[in-house]
């Protein structure tokens, strides 16, 4: 599986107990959803695991991975990141996007000028924000992820057309 088709959904924090269970850190919005995305792949794509969650523990989940039956095998996986196939993630509704898809997209204004690249997607309680890394600016810019400010999101060409509010990209075109 190509690395572009995979999304990092968790990591193994070490062994849990002496019977081959692992301590799993889930990065999913709902931590237990990580089991739904199985099989999970290692970073190099060489190994895949089926996941059975056994219980919630401090700082994570205890889980059994297929092919891991002893504590030594579980310990050997400590620090390994787990990836799910992009196609395993559930379908989205209208105007919904996965952060993983948005990150890295090129942001252009309505005139076709490149404003920057999406570095992260944040939400501080007042709606989603795209953190845009504009090459001409010292700091990143937070673009509201609304239909007014972001009229077009083209996943196929990985481009976002933005109509940012005045003053948001101050300094980008005046050399400051």
């Amino acid at each position, binding site marked *: 599986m190509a690395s572009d088709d995979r999304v990092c959904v968790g990591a193994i924090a070490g062994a849990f107990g002496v019977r081959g269970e692992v301590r799993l850190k889930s990065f999913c919005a709902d931590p237990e959803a990580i089991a739904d995305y199985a099989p999970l792949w290692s970073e190099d794509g060489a190994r895949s695991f089926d996941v059975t969650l056994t219980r919630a523990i401090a700082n994570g989940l205890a889980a059994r991975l297929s092919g891991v039956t002893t504590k030594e095998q579980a310990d050997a996986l400590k620090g390994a990141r787990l990836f799910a196939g992009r196609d395993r993630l559930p379908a989205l509704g209208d105007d919904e996007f*996965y952060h993983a898809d948005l990150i890295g997209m090129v942001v252009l204004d309505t005139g076709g000028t490149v404003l920057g690249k999406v570095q992260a997607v944040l939400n501080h309680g007042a709606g989603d924000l795209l953190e845009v890394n504009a090459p001409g600016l010292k700091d990143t810019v937070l673009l509201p992820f609304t239909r007014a400010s972001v009229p077009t999101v083209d996943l196929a060409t990985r481009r976002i057309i933005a109509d940012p509010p005045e003053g948001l990209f101050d300094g980008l075109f005046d050399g400051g």
Partner: protein
Amino acid sequence: MGRSVWKGPFVDAYVLKKAEKSRESGRNEVIKIWSRRSTILPQFVGLTFGVYNGKKHVTVNVSEDMIGQKFGEYSPTRTYYGHAADKKAKRK
């Protein structure tokens, strides 16, 4: 203890002035403010503020359910990025 009702909500005067000016102009602009302590009033709904967090202005689109909160609540001073994983963003 909460603030006395007779005083009304606290808002820095310059925030009111800037918001009023922006509303009158009808332009789609970010109103840069430094007053994290100001209360969000009903007349701010629909406006976009840039609330300073000590480093930069965090964009805050004011909606109805934010009335009565303080601007600073929507502009965190520390940022944790975490992993994208299966997290979703909805365009409103």
